[in-house]
């Protein structure tokens, strides 16, 4: 899939637009830091199961901040966020890992652990669940081959290229098959052909049933997929279905 020279525009019907109750819902959510002005205001939207959407807006519009709200790294100063039907303010630290395991996150800076091999980085979510290596090894290897890192699984991240790191980070986010995948500028560090290949990878994941939210300011990338767009501007959100 990824090896195709030019990524064709994915047919609209191949992308799930989502239906039913959202796995993540925002209702009149606002966020301010300290006593400063609101950086995000009155956000109301939902991420439906098996849906695909771009989160976009100019630099500094608050895309990363919104992603942090989505994966419960920040708490809103007002409004309601429900994740898998639970009000995030009522999720205690003891229950939080259970919810996090259902959300995969691809960070803009990858956050691979440099002392672990690609294979070990991708296997990390299984390892923290206490699974034996024998139980997850075939799946990790298969996933690594799927993202095109079959030959690079035993090297350390410092020797990986930007695109390889990106794919390793995506594989790590997917290994436990999360219901939602959040990716922060996943194509920000790669050239356009690789960006298209990564986008196709996200499309495949979505077809496999994962709701995908991609934060990007790359208009060209978004034009390749006819998907829902969440546009942030001056702290407010507009949704283009």
């Amino acid at each position, binding site marked *: *899939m*990824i*090896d195709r020279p030019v990524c064709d525009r994915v047919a609209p019907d191949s992308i799930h637009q989502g239906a039913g109750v959202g796995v993540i819902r925002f209702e009149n959510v606002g966020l301010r830091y300290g006593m400063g002005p609101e950086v995000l205001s009155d956000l109301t939207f939902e991420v439906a199961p098996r849906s695909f959407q771009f989160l976009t807006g100019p630099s500094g519009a608050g895309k990363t901040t919104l992603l942090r709200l989505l*994966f*419960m*790294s920040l708490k809103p100063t007002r409004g309601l966020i429900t994740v898998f039907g639970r009000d995030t303010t009522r999720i205690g*630290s*003891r229950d*939080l*890992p*259970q919810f*996090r*395991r259902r959300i995969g*996150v691809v960070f803009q800076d990858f*956050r691979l*652990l440099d*002392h*672990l*091999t690609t294979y*070990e980085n991708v296997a*990390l*979510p299984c*390892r*923290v*669940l*206490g699974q034996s*290596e*024998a139980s*997850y*090894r*075939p*799946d*990790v*290897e*298969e*996933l690594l*081959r*799927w*993202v*095109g*890192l*079959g*030959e690079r*699984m*035993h090297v350390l991240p410092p020797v990986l290229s930007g695109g390889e790191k990106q*794919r390793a980070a995506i594989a*790590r986010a*997917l*290994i*436990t*098959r999360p219901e939602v995948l959040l990716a922060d500028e996943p194509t920000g560090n790669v050239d356009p052909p690789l960006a298209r*290949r990564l986008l196709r*990878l996200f499309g*495949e994941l979505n*077809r*496999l*049933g994962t709701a995908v939210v991609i934060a990007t300011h790359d208009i060209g990338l978004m034009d390749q997929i006819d998907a829902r767009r969440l546009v942030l501007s001056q702290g407010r959100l507009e949704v283009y279905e």
Partner: protein
Amino acid sequence: MTTIRTIRRRRPSVRIPEAADGARPVTSEPSSRQTPIVPPQTIAGRALTLVIAIMTFLASLTIGAVSLVDEAADAWLSDIGREVTIEVRRMEGSGLEEEIAEAVALAQEFPGVGGARAVTDEETRHLLEPWLGAGVDLSALPVPRLVVVTISDPAAFDVAALAEAVGRDIAGGSVDDHDAWIDRLAAMARSMVAGGIAVLALVLVAMVLSVVFATRAAMAGNRQIIEVLHFCGAEDRFIAAEFQRHFLMLGARGGAIGGVLAVVLFAMLDLTITDSAGLPGGEQIDTLLGGFRIGLRGYLAVTLLVLAVAALTALTSRLAVRQSLAAIE
């Protein structure tokens, strides 16, 4: 199972794309040992081990020194407290040698006395030599002769009764039970031990602060690992346990290095003193301290110190993990 393979099984209509790099399946064998989640060898980790080793070494030296002084003080008080001296002065109308012999016989018959012997003229001259020089004519000086009485059973020995008997039966005789000397020596020994304990307390406080700050500094470099584990869905106790185990081993290693070095140093000093027993310096140290043996209490204290340092390091890392997680959440 929640992996791609499982997805394929559940949704047979969904095509798993072939390997993006076209690579054939890699059939690498499972690694025999997984890389620890917390990197085992980092500059911060090695620096922390060094700090712990140095501080444990200094604290162990202080513990050893305090233990040495404490045991030496006990020995001094015990040795001196187990002796009394009968002083016999030359009196007109009585023979000095006869009185001395009578004093020895009198003391030996007393309950609780292990033995009594008169200090010879030669020993007396040797005692006076630092002040009066060699070859002193004792008969020309009003120097009392001494009878050393060794007490074998302090409970049965009655020094007042001995003093009374000596005063009654020995012309020019009196008993010195070393009370004043023992009191001064005890006060000095207590002061030395108290001073040592104060220094030890300061060293321990310095050690605790150094270990805590060095551990926190080492932990600061691991913040990304904590975040990644957290966002991978690791439970707080899993993350805390990973770091606690790592830092416990690190603390134990550093503590053991410092503790063992201190014990080896004491053993070498003791050996050196033993080897130089015939030399003036060695003899004096041996007399004063009874060698550089820190004793069982000293070894136990050093062992406890090493364990405490390891526990402190682990606990500090655990608290640092908790703080990092609280900041993330």
